């Protein structure tokens, strides 16, 4: 299986702070990869680097074999790399349908076609019954779904999901796991940042753990949760003796 994303020696400094340091990471086509780590580990920075919000200080990012570091978010989206935001950013004054159509317009100039595409995506994400509601009036769970719907409407090959489970109730988490599995079945490669371990365990083929911007473990969910370094990172070094 070929790699859709290859990150080599990725480093990002913010002034004196090194948010990401010499990170190597790859995602195979059709895989679900989870990036986990304690708060402030640099997960969102990795996403922002891959999605083009920041240019990396060092290192290369290859998407489908093309070098993409330093390219702008809108160009990357056109290449097939879409993302959601940890703090959801709906176009609150517009309807759900309008929000998703904005995404769908990337691949068409026709309003009619964009509407059809958006309707299709809304059905996939089980949002079709609220297509005419204002996005600002949705519950947090529906806003997270809308966030995915917007990204999905751009027809991505690789989807970056930044904590789409955060703030959801357990049943809603189960729904979301189903939805993300469904995306993979449609051929979308999924790269998630997630804190809810139950979801990480259920979803991911592989997990990468980072701390202080460095990779400390990588492997199947089961292997990673038994890793000593990971346990230390989450619980702190002094728990060693216990």
């Amino acid at each position: 299986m070929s790699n859709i994303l290859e990150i080599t020696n990725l480093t990002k400094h913010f002034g004196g702070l090194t948010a990401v340091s010499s990170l190597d990471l790859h995602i195979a086509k059709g895989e679900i990869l989870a990036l986990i780590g304690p708060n402030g580990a640099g997960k969102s920075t990795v996403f922002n680097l891959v999605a083009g919000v920041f240019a990396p200080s060092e290192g290369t990012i290859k998407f489908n074999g093309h070098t993409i570091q330093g390219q702008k978010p809108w160009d990357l989206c056109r290449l097939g790399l879409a993302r959601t935001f940890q703090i959801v950013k709906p176009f609150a004054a517009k309807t759900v349908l309008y929000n998703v159509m904005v995404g769908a317009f990337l691949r068409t100039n026709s309003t009619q076609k964009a509407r059809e595409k958006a309707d299709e995506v809304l059905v996939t994400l089980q949002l079709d019954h609220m297509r005419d509601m204002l996005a600002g009036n949705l519950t947090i769970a529906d806003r997270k779904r809308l966030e995915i719907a917007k990204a999905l409407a751009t027809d991505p090959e690789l989807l970056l999901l930044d904590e789409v489970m955060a703030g959801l109730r357990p049943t809603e988490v189960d729904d979301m796991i189903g939805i993300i599995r469904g995306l993979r079945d449609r051929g979308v490669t999924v790269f998630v940042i997630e804190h809810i371990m139950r979801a990480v365990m259920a979803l991911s083929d592989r997990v990468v753990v980072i701390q202080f911007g460095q990779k400390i473990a990588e492997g199947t969910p089961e292997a990673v949760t038994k890793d000593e370094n990971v346990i230390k990172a989450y619980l702190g070094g002094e728990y060693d003796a216990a």
Partner: protein
Amino acid sequence: MSRKQLDRTLLVLAALVAFALPLVVTSPTYLQILILLFFYAYLTTSWNLVGGFAGVLPLGHSVFVGIGAYTSSILTLQYGVSPWIGMLAGGVLAAIIGMVIGLPTFRMRGAYFCLCTIAFAEGIRVMVENIDNIGPLHINGPRGLLIPLKDPSFWNYQFMSKLPYYYIILILLILVLGLTWFISRSKIGYYLAAGGEEPEAAAALGINVANYKLFAMAMSCFLTALAGTFYAQLMLYFYPKGLMGLDLSFEIAFIALIGGRGTIAGPVIGALLLRPLNEFTRIYLSDMLPGLHLVIFGLILILVMLYLPKGLTAPLAAIYDRLARKITVQGDAK
């Protein structure tokens, strides 16, 4: 009758009333008030393309009115070019200058953007006031330009009565409203609205927000400048302080905010309310205090923002929706 048919019938009816109005309103004074009403509705609709849809608040659009007026008038006075051609030249020049202003300022958000557009606009006005000649072009400093009477004809953009001016501005208004309608339903409109509301989210969906804003700015400035030529030919005299000052820029923004920013009908509804008010206060209250009409505008703006933050169009549209539903349901029952 379906909803679409009802909408269409009412629109056609409104257009017919507008076209037939001069049959009833024959006094030149009242006709002039109507012309200025449409003139402001046109200006605000043009402004709305960037100020409404693109979600920024430019407060220096009078400069583009000035660019339109000066370009066509100088071309007519010094080179004998028809104002109609000068009008297009002014539009193109305004679009270019608008993009030059937009390039650095669109990076800013909120109040900073407003302040920058004011600074640019005032800067250009002060320059025009203090320069008599730019190379071979005679702009006559603070005294402004006087357009001498010529044979009244369409080509000369001068007419014996107010009536042709009325129809020219009415047709311009209908065209720009049509353009707005088209844009709001097309990709550009969706992209502008998205970029205006959440620039980061829009960028992540493949939208180069700055480019779309620049495009909207160019369109808006082009259309605004056309109105400048119209004003010059209507009045046959203009000067920088009257035409390019902040009063005009602010009035455009007032009309948009009170009528409803980012809506198609908003600028027209705003102009319908504020223009007569403006004329009334100017006629009856200007002896007391010049500029009082702007104070009254400000008061209305505060009230509207407090109680109808989306402007007058949203509640009016809701009322119309309810009425329309009743009518169409009754119609279907029959």
